[in-house]
């Protein structure tokens, strides 16, 4: 599941452990990929947390609800890298 982790992060969380090799692959891919709003990815064995600057998203999209836009970008990244379907 994805959820808003405060006002500056969205977190993907699953009950199953994410293997260390998968986390490393995702970390490498995150650092090599250009992102629109995602600044940083923090990983644990159950979570992938994406940091963003909410006011930047708000001003770019003329909205005060930036969370869905960031979740979509994070989800697309994870789909692109074959982690989510």
């Amino acid at each position, binding site marked *: *599941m994805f*959820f*808003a*982790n*405060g*006002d*500056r*992060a969205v*977190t993907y*969380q699953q*009950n199953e452990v994410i293997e260390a090799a998968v986390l490393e692959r995702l970390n490498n891919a995150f650092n090599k990929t250009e992102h629109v709003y995602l600044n*940083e990815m*923090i*990983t*644990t*064995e*159950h*979570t992938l*947390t994406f940091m963003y600057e*909410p*006011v930047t998203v*708000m001003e770019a999209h003329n909205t*005060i*609800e*930036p*969370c869905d836009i960031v979740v979509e970008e994070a989800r697309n990244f994870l789909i692109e890298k074959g982690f989510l379907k």
Partner: protein
Amino acid sequence: MSLIIQDSGLFSIVQSLDKRPSSRGSEYNGACDRLAHQLANQLVGNAANDLTIEMTVRPATIKFTEPTIIAYSGAEFVGRCNDQQVHPNRIYFFDRGDVLEFVDTPRGNRIYLAVAGGIEAEGSNILKSGDEVVMCRDYTVRHDELFNMLRNKNMVNWGVDIYSLVEIYISDLFHIVRRPDVSDEVYEMLENAEFTVSKEKNRVSLHLTGKKITPAPSNIVHPGIKGGLYLADGAPILALNDFNQSTTAEHIGTIPSYHMHKLSQKRTGSRLKFKVIDCGDSHANLYAQDLWVKSLFKAIDYKLSKELVKEKM
């Protein structure tokens, strides 16, 4: 020439506004009170993200070795130099040999001292007694004008009044952005209880005592997120900027960034209450605060420009 830290106080550190890549022992994980960091820089005409000195509980004693313009923001510590009182959110000029000391305050925890033209740490950013802080002297035209104005009177006779910041700092109520997998019962318990700060691990975490809260165990390893509210054996722990490791303590929500300014000013013995809100509400509040901060900074710029024009006439 530089600033000499005669007494480092309890915990003084050269700090950046945002997290930046840094080595172990010299970590720049960002200012705990981002508003105070930016406000101090704004007052002395620096860029908002220039480094400041973050001082906690008992601020450092600082000796100036050349003409220097400073301002500090955050807690209500009153400084003293050459028998003159020095107040937060005002602009001061110090000369070679001047020593700035601070008197304890019953309110607040941290101050951020900005130096016109910027500073950088010589070695580790954690300051010890006897350390020197390098002055960058990246002076702009605004800085030159400030120096010219302050050489005669050593302080600007206006500042940001503490009452204009009351809305940001003076409240014990903290918003928590809810998680979808935490039950309403847990949030009810959280909202109905009052907590006291029992200790702070410097820049890492605030430990609270009060009613124990016991959510259903999840066995999830959570990330350490600034503002995160974690439960260790039912006792709440709040993550500050240097809390950057994962944890098996249950995470039940995160304090939005607009309440982190006042959280970082809470000290041992401070009381806290929580109100659980949705992410959408936190973003609306964040945007409102962002607009307010921008207007405050514009007002400082305007006031300073007016003062400088008056000086030239």
